[in-house]
């Protein structure tokens, strides 16, 4: 019995063994930490911002977070600090709308160094429950293991919704109606190809979205706020590879059109204005009020031309009447990117109707493979557009979307190493002021991001855990039944 007691005491001492920061050299600079959380604005319900020292020779890293009420939170670790989840949330809740001061010390071979403190601002605007994304290796044409996953933003919990171990093929383009998985669209590619649709929390049905009157399978879905319609594009997509360019891959369309799917009537709504042979139309999204359809459009390349760097997409808009499903008879160009020798992709209107965020690159529409791609913010009230310099980096920024309260943006960025896409978040206030982007927190961020050879593909907000039974869905996928999309021409 005594022996057990000794072992327990030893274990306890070992577990609680923390070194006191003493005789530290005071540094005037702020610490260089990974991920860079210095001066960021975070939502009150975000998971602990654990971090490591950029300098990997650090033997220990120590952080003390203090607030203006005298509370503090301490963590020390060999590689990363790891704040207690409950204490972290309680500290953030107590400091909603206020700043926290983080004092970092690191122990190196020559002893402790204490850095100039930095602040973290706790925004009163909360963020949605989580994000949903696809994990896939950033490759070329062949895929290995992949799947659709969701992550609780207030903790470190990740859950696989479906993985390609459950069926033969690939899964992509998950889409929810304003983060609500009651309305969802998900594509399966390969021998069991289908589009899985669920409306209003009903059962999931597998559809064949290819029709005689459209180019191919429906891709790039975006839900109408009413939940009755989904905007899709149909794209004939190809890939080529660069022999000597910092961008590896060029993904491009040789034809593309738009259509809106009426979920209630199982009908694709077509418009001749949105399926012009001389125009590539892609990335359709509904405006916040559901009365407009924004999309990207470029002049089609002449047949046989390989001048991919001359394909430039403008941001366009067409009226849409949700009552009748009719399109307007005029296309407006909202951002004439071609005139700037630039190209727009991934337009995403904020749900409050104030802004539209989009990606701007030198050419093309698959901006994730363009190192120069950056995010821009269009003020829909003034029509003025500006780069989101505060959130952008020197490397790729690409897919993004808004939280349901329109105050947070999740964005894909390759700033970490130039290849693997990571999710970042930034705050956008009602005036359009943007804050520095911060990386999705992890318990041990260096280990997590270094060991994971996946890109976070199409990260999008979800308002709660996704109602999704992967086993049941894989049975639907593996079953041969597919309901066909019908077509209604206007």
């Amino acid at each position: 019995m005594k022996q057990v007691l000794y072992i327990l005491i030893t274990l306890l001492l070992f577990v609680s063994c923390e070194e006191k920061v003493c005789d530290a050299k005071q540094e005037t600079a702020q610490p260089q930490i990974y991920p860079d959380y210095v001066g960021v604005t975070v939502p009150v319900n975000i998971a602990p911002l654990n971090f490591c020292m950029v300098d990997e020779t650090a033997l220990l890293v120590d952080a003390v977070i203090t607030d203006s009420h005298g509370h503090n939170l301490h963590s020390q670790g060999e590689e990363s600090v790891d704040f207690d989840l409950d204490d972290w949330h309680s500290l953030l809740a107590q400091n909603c709308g206020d700043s926290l001061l983080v004092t970092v010390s690191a122990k190196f071979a020559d002893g402790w160094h204490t850095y100039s403190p930095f602040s973290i601002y706790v925004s009163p605007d909360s963020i949605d429950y989580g994000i949903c994304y696809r994990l896939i290796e950033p490759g070329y044409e062949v895929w290995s293991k992949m799947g659709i996953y969701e992550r609780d933003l207030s903790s470190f919990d990740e859950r696989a919704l479906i993985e390609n171990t459950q069926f033969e093929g690939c899964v992509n383009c998950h889409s929810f109606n304003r983060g609500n998985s009651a309305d969802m669209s998900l594509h399966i590619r390969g021998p069991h190809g289908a589009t899985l649709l669920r409306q209003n929390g009903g059962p999931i049905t597998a559809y064949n979205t290819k029709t005689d009157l459209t180019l191919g399978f429906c891709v790039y879905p975006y839900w109408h706020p009413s939940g009755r319609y989904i905007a899709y594009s149909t794209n004939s997509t190809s890939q080529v590879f660069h022999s000597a360019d910092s961008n590896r891959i060029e993904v491009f369309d040789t034809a593309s059109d738009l259509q809106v799917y009426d979920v209630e009537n199982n009908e694709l709504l077509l418009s001749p204005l949105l399926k012009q042979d001389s125009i590539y139309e892609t990335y359709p999204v509904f405006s916040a009020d559901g009365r407009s359809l924004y999309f990207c459009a470029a002049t089609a390349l002449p047949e046989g031309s390989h001048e991919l760097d001359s394909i430039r997409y403008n941001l366009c808009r067409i009226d849409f009447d949700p009552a009748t499903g009719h399109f307007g008879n005029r296309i407006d160009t909202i951002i004439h990117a071609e005139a700037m020798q630039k190209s727009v992709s991934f337009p995403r209107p904020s749900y409050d109707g104030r802004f539209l965020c989009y990606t701007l690159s030198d050419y093309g529409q698959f901006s994730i493979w363009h190192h120069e791609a950056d995010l821009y913010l269009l003020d829909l009230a003034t029509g003025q557009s500006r780069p989101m310099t505060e959130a952008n980096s020197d490397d790729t920024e690409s897919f993004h979307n808004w939280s349901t309260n329109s105050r947070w943006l999740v964005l894909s960025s390759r700033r970490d190493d130039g290849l693997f896409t990571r999710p970042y978040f930034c705050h956008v206030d009602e005036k359009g002021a943007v804050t520095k982007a911060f990386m999705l927190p992890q318990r041990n961020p260096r280990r997590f991001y270094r060991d994971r050879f996946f890109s976070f593909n199409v990260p999008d907000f979800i308002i709660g855990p996704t109602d999704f039974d992967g086993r049941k869905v894989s049975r639907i996928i593996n079953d041969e039944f597919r309901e066909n999309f019908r077509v209604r021409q206007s």
Partner: protein
Amino acid sequence: MKHFTHQSSFFTIKALYTLLFGVAVLLFFGLAYPHHLHYQEQYQLFLFDSAYLWDIVKQPGGVADMLGRFCTQFFLFAWVGALMIAVLLMLVQLLVLRLANYGWLYGLSFVPSFLLWLFLLDENALMGGVWAVLLTLLAINVCLLMPKGWGRRIAILIIIPILYWMVGPALSGSHYHRYPTVTPSLLYATWLSAIILPLLVRVCHKWVSASRPLISHLLPLLLLIVMGTFVWKNANFKAEKVMQYDFMARYQQWNRILETINAEKPNNQIGVTVQNLALGMRGLLVDHLFEYRQNGIAGLLPDVQRDATSPLPTAEAFYQLGMINMAQRTVFEAQESILDFQKSGRCYKRLAQTNLINGNYEVARKYLLALKKTLFYSEWADETLQLLGNEEAIAQHPEYGRLRQLSYTEDYYFGDSVTPEMLETLFFNHTENRLAYEYLVAYYMLTGDRDSYEKLLLQLQEK
């Protein structure tokens, strides 16, 4: 006393038979099948990393899978791999032997091990399967060691779920074969034989316990010969030859390749690709092209296929030519094509190298840090990590410095096929790129493009 001596000598002979069997397995995999082992090793990456191990072990069958993967990393050295297989198959035989008193049917205890040997002839059969059989036999032996009655029943109740966790469901979902859709019937036959044969012997106890010393000695010998012949007949030596070419290309054994092709001209796609690469590396391709079997331009630089095997020698050719982005893409696609979603030490290494040459140091670092967690690639990874960002050291490096110089400076788009324009651009970018010259002229020769060849000669004269 006489009985004791007889028993003792039979015991010695049994040990000798087991040893003989082990030596046969060792020699087979070490001498006749070594490249199958190399092939196995290159389609997995065993990491000494808690998260990696937990991901494997947490699945039903994870323990067998992990032990299998652990062993497979040693297949980088064929003799070590052969020794491991030999020891494991000997253990299986000894554990089967412990399950019953076989009497003169003692030779039957070799049947499951022989079936496992047959199973391992398939290059996609995984060592996890062998471990699954071994662990099952260990569990049965442990149960039988328990005294009869409640103790044994309780032990069985405890062992069954543990065994399920360790070896997984017997008929599906476990990591016994690289093709998830393939049913490893030989493995199931092994399992069945390992259980049914001892049971049968126990049932026919009286019949088998009769003293038949001659048969008891001859039967194992007969089995060794019959089943050994069966193994030999079922071995895929054609595949072994292809794997040998791939192995030699991987380790850039150009002289050995030339010796091999001179002894026997390859007649398969991979062999021809490797043959041409070795000829090119030694500056012999143009002069001796048609002395060897060719397969049109598909034997020079074949179109990139969506599988894990055939693109790797082509990727080696791309790399040596200085077509770094093509090499990178081809290796990446090959790795992604590994059917059981594993990674490859060979591919990680090459991806680190191509990223290093391209100056993508952070991406190279990611691959290198993963390789640092391996047993046999960590030293190389450590050395290569020192090069990252060190432009001077890279420029002076005999391989990376040269390839960085030879690689394209002018950008163009490429797809699955190599065109003569790509080789022309490569060659005229650096006319000292002898391999590019060899491949370009070989391309003209294989396509019968005399005009382009004469044009090339003219251009060279003008230079």
